[in-house]
């Protein structure tokens, strides 16, 4: 069967520039400096978001009440990753989870430092903070068993 001719093409994706609302992130990162989780509570429905949007998606009202959330929580779902995004084997299996922190309604994703055999839904974890926190995402080193 005669094959079609192949013409190579590519998209230059690096030239897109998107604006995003960053107040919720900034509030959270400020909290990181003091090793605290800071979210936003809706005054109308009581929902606690982490990180906080300044608009309740449930009530469709503007919200701005900062609230401190415990850095202890419960694993709601998890995975143990054996291959990377291109399917290549990982050097070590990596455990990650969606965690619901006490007093918060959102679930937060992150790496869990534990034996892959131990991870389970309902497992109690806490945040392992970097010794020196500076207000960026890396301050939250991992989740570790309580």
């Amino acid at each position, binding site marked *: 069967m005669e094959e079609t001719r192949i013409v190579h093409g590519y998209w230059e994706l690096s030239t897109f520039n998107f604006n995003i609302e960053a107040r919720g992130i900034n509030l959270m990162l400020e909290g990181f400096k003091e090793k605290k989780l800071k979210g936003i509570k809706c005054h109308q429905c009581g929902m606690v978001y982490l*990180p906080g949007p300044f608009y309740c998606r449930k009530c469709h009202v503007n919200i701005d009440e900062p609230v401190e959330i415990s850095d202890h929580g419960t694993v709601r779902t998890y995975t*143990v990753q054996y291959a990377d*995004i291109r399917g290549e084997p990982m050097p070590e299996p990596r455990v990650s989870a*969606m965690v619901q922190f006490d007093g918060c*309604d959102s679930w937060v994703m992150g790496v869990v430092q534990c034996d892959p055999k131990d991870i389970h839904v309902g497992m109690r974890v806490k945040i392992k903070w970097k010794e020196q926190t500076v207000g960026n995402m890396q301050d939250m080193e991992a989740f570790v068993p309580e």
Partner: protein
Amino acid sequence: MRNVGIVGVGYCPRFVSKRTDVCIPEMVSEAVEAAFADCGLGPEDIDAVIFGNMHPFEGVNMPHLWAVEHMRALGKPVMRIATGGTTGMTAFHAAYYHIVSGLHDVVMVVTFEKHSEGDAQVGLLGIITPEAMAMMMAGIDLTGAGGMGAQGGGSAGAITYQAVSWMHKSGATIDHIDAIAAMERRNAARNPYAHLKDPEATPEKIAKTPMISYPVRFGHVCPTTDGATVCILASEERAAKIADKVAWVWGVASCASDPTTGNLIEGLITDPAEQRQCVIAAQEAYKRAGIEDPKKEIDYVEIYNGFAHQTLMYLELVGMCEVGEAHKLLEKGELEISGRLPVNASGGVVSTNAIGTSALNRVTECALQIMGKAGERQVEKEVHKALAHGWGGLMQYVSITILADKPKKL
């Protein structure tokens, strides 16, 4: 309102990893010709064309314009649809709206994907742009340990959280995911338009495939496929003249959730297995179709299952069984081609995934079962009513179509 029916279905001759013998418009043309041959219509009979694919997969921004002659659409209205995995079914719904509105009588849906000409990972990353934006707005680091990098394996990554959460709620185990994957590969072997076929597939064989990210194994994941599907719909008056066998549209519905991995209908990132939008869309479709008890009234189901656990999870969410019951139906053999509630006799999306076609194929496979034209994959029981499910958007859009063997009483 008036009745609308499916009068013709056409697939390109084979759904495989690489069609190097045809270009995109030529592959589209094959499916158009097959659909015309199926119902005896020609270009002059078509009032309007709806086109569906996901452009990031091939990097072709307006393939419907490139393919306009090949899909015999010169001089006709053409509308293009892109809703992620649900694209094919949304295109079908658009065609239904064209006819039910009374504006057109015969409308053709044309869908394709030719993954071999693009990069599926780049395509998926393009699709998740709004999710990435939402995650950044939520302060989630996209590249570091806390972000999508932590989810592993691209699209398979986010789905792993869904699979674990569903297993926890339903009581199913990874053995059930192996078993449903094996069933679908065996079903695919009976379908000439399926991609990954294995008549000898067993749960044990699937269990030997490498673990990507627990509990998702290589054997649980859809392939990237080249393929095209066409479906022709007509008003009741015209359908009666065109075809002896018609699959009638009784109810359609769709529902969106928020643009993140979790369930955000409630307004926050939570359980990716909750998929409230599926429950809402199914209930709305049942209401429109006048179906009171889907467990009793629906004979056949096609589920959009990019990943094997989703067959079982969505069976529960569309209300075909209770939560925690789907894997028990599987154990009893009820989901097989010979079973009481046959599901995905086609082999499902997990066996064949040319994304633009995948949600439309759920509809066309239901139609072929109703018409009795499904060949070797025809289920043993009589199919009077069938439900087609489409899952797409990012992870947060679901479409439902209910078909029947008779026109609906209006």
